[in-house]
């Protein structure tokens, strides 16, 4: 539900999203040297695989988005990683579209980046329950901000999308709950098993 298809958004929104993503990807790839490329690539692949997990919630089920987690672990490198994952999802699964790729990437990468810049530094210093809580906040924030940005993209294109946007935002609530829980558990796992992964001053 985080992927807007082509043909929905207005031209200014498409161009704006593409420009913003291009700038962010350009900056992030300049920061990412070739030595770190395997790490970012393998983790991007891992996130892609993790997004195939179907998690039951209530009577239905959701696919994980994991952009909060991605931001926390990858920092700026999450931006190109999100773009690569979205391209694969679009071309091979038919999620989203081509011209809209910039907007979709922006909607998912910006919250990831925010989590990377604001929450990751706190995770360096936490343990146990606090790791879970900060992880849950990152997971929830990733989903919530993506949902809001998605609605914003729709509304900026046409005010007629308001009711649809409200419905979509509503469907984000179960995902937000699950994502918070899963991201918390994942970060707690990493904190206990491989804490050096959270200490990513290098990225």
């Amino acid at each position, binding site marked *: *539900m985080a992927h*807007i*298809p*082509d*043909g*929905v958004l207005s*031209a200014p929104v498409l161009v704006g999203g593409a420009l913003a993503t291009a700038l962010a*990807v*350009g900056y992030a*790839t300049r920061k*990412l040297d*070739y*030595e770190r*490329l*395997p*790490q970012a*690539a*393998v983790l*991007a*692949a*891992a996130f892609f*695989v*993790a997004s195939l*997990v*179907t*998690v*039951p919630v*209530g009577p239905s089920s959701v696919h*994980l988005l*994991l952009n909060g987690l991605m931001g926390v*672990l990858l920092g700026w490198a999450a931006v*190109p*990683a999100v773009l*690569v*994952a979205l391209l*694969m999802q679009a*071309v*091979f*699964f*038919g*999620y989203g*579209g*081509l*011209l809209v790729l910039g907007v979709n990437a922006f909607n998912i990468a910006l919250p990831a980046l925010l989590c990377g810049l604001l929450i990751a530094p706190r995770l360096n210093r936490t343990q146990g329950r606090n790791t879970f809580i900060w992880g849950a906040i990152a997971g929830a924030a990733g989903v919530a901000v993506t949902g809001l940005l998605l609605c914003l993209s729709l509304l900026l294109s046409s005010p*007629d*999308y308001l*009711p*649809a946007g409200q419905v*979509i935002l509503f469907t984000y609530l179960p995902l937000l709950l699950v994502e918070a*829980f*899963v991201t918390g*558990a*994942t*970060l*707690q*796992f*990493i904190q206990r*098993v*491989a804490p050096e*992964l959270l200490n990513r001053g290098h990225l």
Partner: protein
Amino acid sequence: MNSLLSLGSERQPTWARKRDPRLRVVAALWLALVAVSLSQPLALASLLLLVLLLAGLLRLPWSLLFQRLLAFEGFMLVLTLMLPFSVAGDPLFQLAGFSASEQGVERALVILLRANTVVIGMLTLLGTLEPEQLGHALGRLKLPDKLVHLFLLSVRYLFVLLDEYRRLRTAMRARAFTPRSDRHTWRSYGWLVGMLLVRSMERSQRVLAAMKCRGFHGRLYLLDNNRWQLTDSGLLLLFILLAAGPWLWESGMLTALPGGAIP
């Protein structure tokens, strides 16, 4: 398992498999541009027809296509179901006290047609490529080098990690794990994702070590056999013209040509 990504590149006719993958990338982008700029249902329907013909020509497995579309139509449904009621205009029918407008129905129809045309075209033209071919094509189209290699490395390890993930899931099932809507399930998934990430990080370190062992000093290379041929140019031109047809027709230029009279 590999069919998870590529939509049956083996099934394609030889003439299609021999084409430079750049042809498909450019064609897919052109198709998306045309589709997005059309706003008449009839013009869009003819473009969609063209795309479906192309899918048949490239022997896209229909069952797989429908499977992919199913996931996609959920979003489209939410988006378009409301439009007849939120777009103001001439009332067409009433439902539970809300009035649907003619303009709203047409908008919904246009959006549905556009989105489906682009998605089916994308799956037909690009989804039938090996992901590696797509990466090479993006590289040859001068996308930033690091981004291209990030894509190619991701694709390479996607399959390795997918195998790891599947084996872990199988083992969980063997230990009587049944996903439910509860904390135990969510926590288990969190750990599963964590384990995948930790192992991925370790693997990426081994990959970097292997790269260094072979003299890596901050450069990656692309070596592919793609040669742009005259046939590619011809096919691209043909596709551009065919896809532009509905657009020319919608803007009135097509009818203008033979008669010479602009209405």
